[in-house]
């Protein structure tokens, strides 16, 4: 039986954008704070620290996760990918290009989180419908765009991913 004390410095190991990372955290530290303040990986943004805006999203073991809801100790041995570490995933380029073409974002602070959600969705489901996209983006708040430019970019990306999936079959 293992017990961790909050006053202890908890060692933490995980994979970050394909590289092994070792650091120490406290029981109360969120993954967002570890990424931004300990590892200086500020491409992961911080919005509400309550899981309600999606700005801090990362891929955790391949699935989008609000890093602010992950207590850092829960990331032990996890595979974490930030918005700047997506290059290795096959749909990333399609998603990024389609979003740029449709001028999806304005201030861009929410963009890394939206890109994580879309890359997560289209990696898992190359035949995503508009309804699937809406569901995938429910947890990402954008205050600038009114969402339609993001939806246009997302649907363009979804169509291209679906097209490529049918070509490779």
């Amino acid at each position, binding site marked *: 039986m293992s017990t961790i004390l909050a006053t202890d410095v908890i060692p933490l190991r995980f994979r970050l954008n394909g590289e092994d990372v070792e650091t120490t955290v406290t029981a109360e530290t969120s993954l967002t704070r570890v990424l931004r303040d300990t590892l200086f990986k*500020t491409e992961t943004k911080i919005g509400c620290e309550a899981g309600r805006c999606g700005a801090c999203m990362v891929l955790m073991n391949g699935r989008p996760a609000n890093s602010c809801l992950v207590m850092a100790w829960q990331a032990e041995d996890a595979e974490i990918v930030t918005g700047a570490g997506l290059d290795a995933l096959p749909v990333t380029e399609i998603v990024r290009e389609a979003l740029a073409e449709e001028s999806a974002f304005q201030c861009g602070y929410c963009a890394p989180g939206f890109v994580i959600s879309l890359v997560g969705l289209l990696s898992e489901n190359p035949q995503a419908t508009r309804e699937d996209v809406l569901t995938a983006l429910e947890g990402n708040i954008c205050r600038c765009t009114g969402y339609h430019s993001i939806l246009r970019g997302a649907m363009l990306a979804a169509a291209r991913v679906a097209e490529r999936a049918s070509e490779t079959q």
Partner: protein
Amino acid sequence: MRIFKPETPSQAVTMLAEAGPQARLSAGSSAFQAEWSLGKPRPTALIDISGLDGLSGIVATDSAVTIGANVTLSEIIASPEVAEGCPLLAEAARRVGATTIRHRATLGGNIGWRIGCLLPALLVLGAELEVLTEDGTQTVPLADWLVPPSAPALLTGVVIPCQNAETRTGFRKIGLRAAFTPSVIAVAGSLSLKDGIVEAARLAVGGGPVPAARLAEAEQRLTGQRYDAVDWSAVRVAIEAEIAAPDDTFRSARYRKRAGANALVGVLSGNLPGEIRGGRTLRPKPAPPIDEFHLSRAEGGNRWHIRSDLPAKIAAELPYLTDARRDDMLVGAVLRLDEPHARILSIDTSAAEALAGVKAVVTHRDIKGENSFGIVFPDQPALCSDKVRYAGDPVAGVAAVDRETALKALALIKVDYEVLPVVSDPLAALDWDAERVHENGNLASTIELDRGDIDAGFASAAHVVEEVYVMPRQMHGFMETEGGYAEPAPDGGLAVFAGGQYGVRDRQQLARILAMPEDKIRVVTSPTGGGFGGKDELTVQPALALLALKANAPVRMQWTRAESVLAGTKRNPMKIRMRTACDADGMLLAQEVDILADSGAYASLSPGVLETAHEHACGPYISPNVKTLGRLAYTNNGTCGAFRGFGANQMTYAIECQMDRLAAFCGLDPIEIRRRNLREPGMPGFLGQKVAPTERLTEMLDAAASSPLWQETPQARSQIRSDEIIGAGMALNYQGNGLGTIPHDEAIGRLVLGRDGRIEAHFGLDEMGQGLIPSIHAAVADKLGCAREDICAVIGDTAATPDSGSTTASRGGYVVWKGTELTAPPFSAKLLAKAADLLGRDAADLKVIPGGIADAATNSQVPLITFAALADGLKPGESIVEEAEFAFPKSDYTKGNARFIFAYGATLARVAVDRATGEVRVLDLELHTAAGPVIDLAAYLGQMEGGMVQGLGFTLTEDVLIKDGRFLTTNYDNYFMPTVRDAPERMATFALEDLDPGDPFGPRGAGEIGISSVTPAIANAVADAIGRWPAVTPFRPEDILDFCEAAE
């Protein structure tokens, strides 16, 4: 907080027993952070059950589905066993949280907290729980679990009997917005039918504050009845009577009971009893088409460009000012008393200063200059000395080696204070004997106008409408909270990097506080992750500057969202009482307007907001008799300031609803009554001021008259539920650009040939997302004849850019355009002269093309000399620079603030009003705009769409709630900005770009026109559906239900 990791379920139970009542079980842990961010205490122990054997998996038999407590909601939604055996559960699970929450949240957690939205569905399904206690495993009915057991217990699994195919089931969750919302109430029901008879009925409610419970009496009433012959009206009444539900901050018990009963009857019967017919507004006659441009990538063709700053943002490569990290940077934090009104008696920082790792503590005693700032008048302290006037007022700052130390130090600062009476009602604040927020009293500013004979106007009226329009304390909600960093310069000066909207003014205000010459201070304000007016005033800068100077080290600070909610400026809540009269033909006779605006604790730009609201008091209409009064009251309700629309959108809501109401009285359509009263181009403005040419109100009305939204289409019909009513409405608006007559409103723009051959466009404006950079690239490239890629926008840095004025008031676009108009021709001449010199040619034979300078006589796209070569050819000390200083165009009215240049727009809305819940869904928004030539298509479209949805939030869901000066709204889990599901199904944006012949004023500002008539368009659409105009925003579903009742 201690973390325990048991290896078996029974170990978990033992640990729970030993750790005491403050221990909590943690599986998905999706809800803790939201609690903790509200400052709720952390548990003493967290027992991590996420990896335990025996709590996962879904197993189905013929009669039941057994689901492990650690199964996530996403797994339930994706499960074929659940889809087959108990689809009601999957239906309910889809409405919990958002995708990433459902990936983490478990079934056990939803049940374990006893407030989950799934509980009514589980009650109806007859779920039983497998519960492990120290006595072993027991199976208990869910209803028994809802009474908290006294002994430590671990929920391990849930057994759900399979739904019968003959059973009619339904689930509905009513929330506070379309998705990702807490429950107002959730309802579920199932009716087992045999030969058309209800054999058994199970009904349940729950969700959020509503105790989860079956509705036994209503169930009994239904049992044994013939399904086709059920008296649903009577059932509805019975259910409403039986639901036990409390009031809370957002919704009343009465609403929860009514909406819950309606929703339950709706899902069980398929149709709520009764009927409301929409289409009450007289449809306008289509007008001749106008030459508008439908904005989209497809229609844009070669005018559509990818924003140069976008790829880096999408690739998460753009560092914002809050992203700066260096090992030598300290972390700053600010102490707030969380008291709305208190007199400070003493501040003792000694314990904080003594804490290891603390490098500086600052209070008002560290301020060498004036302890005050404020754009209109400086009434706001940098750090409070005598009083705090709102809950977020800063008292002290700390810089420490890390955030944890800084927060610990804040807790060690001892402030003695005496609580003062709280001023929370803006009207009561103006009583002569009210407690004073500021020494001079609580009337921050006032404005009035009396023209014609108001009494005679009303006396001769055929129709008079009067209403009090109530508007919310909307939060800007920029995704990047206020923050940045500051570092001392070697010369004793200071550099401050923090998102803002006017670096030169930030520098002035800081210089005053620090008693430091302005030229010793550098302020960098871009890039900023959203502003909307909320970063116009100083935010983090004073504390950051004081800390960096005292610590003599770089300090970074970013407000948490909770701090931003508490401390940041908000939109001024307003009550506008408007009384409007017309004759039998709909001609306006009298307009009486009383504005009461809440300034919060400080003025900031609120007096300007009041003036702008007042300037729109008659809308773009002519009324011969006008009487107005506007008052701005200081209170202890947070603090307010600039926000997109700046008072115009508030007033437009009132006047545009009044016009539709009068139209209904007169038997006119909404377009016709507006045409009859519309100002004519060239007439003086509302204050008698001269108005710039290119007025486009008639054209906007023509466009609105011809909108397809007036007709109910099969597509719209197919998107609504049977209990929704469709309505359509429109509103007209105009929005002044620039700061008005009185404030200093000048700008400088500069073009420079950079050493690397790029053409630098220097503007002291800020990129907050609105598209300043693409607009600069577009304007300069178009005027010079080069490519956008040749341009480098240099912005938002007092060390590098000239004073171009503020990036507010829809003025940035004009400044870029005018600055380019003035500088590009002489700059081009200088480029050509230099090229001629280097090439040995005559400058008159050369021209600028993408990439460099070419022979004017050819169509060659290959430059004779590139810009880079041109830059290389500059002699030491030689430069090619062109700068222009110009004034923002102003009116001739000097008695007050009046705008000269306007942009024009019309918004149309199609809504679906839910007569079961009183919720309003916006199906369509269509925006027509006339703001002169569009500089950058994508940026312009983005401003319009973003403005519309921000307006939608103002109208339907957003309000920062404060009671007795204390914030009830604390973070994004109780402030509801639109999600992707709240955005309209369709949005269409049009631009009418032409200018009147000889109009010298170019493109109009595009920042605010998109928001300004959204609210009245939606309100008028609601009235089209149900015959009443909501006058309180965000609309209260309870009011809408009352209207529906009246309409039936």
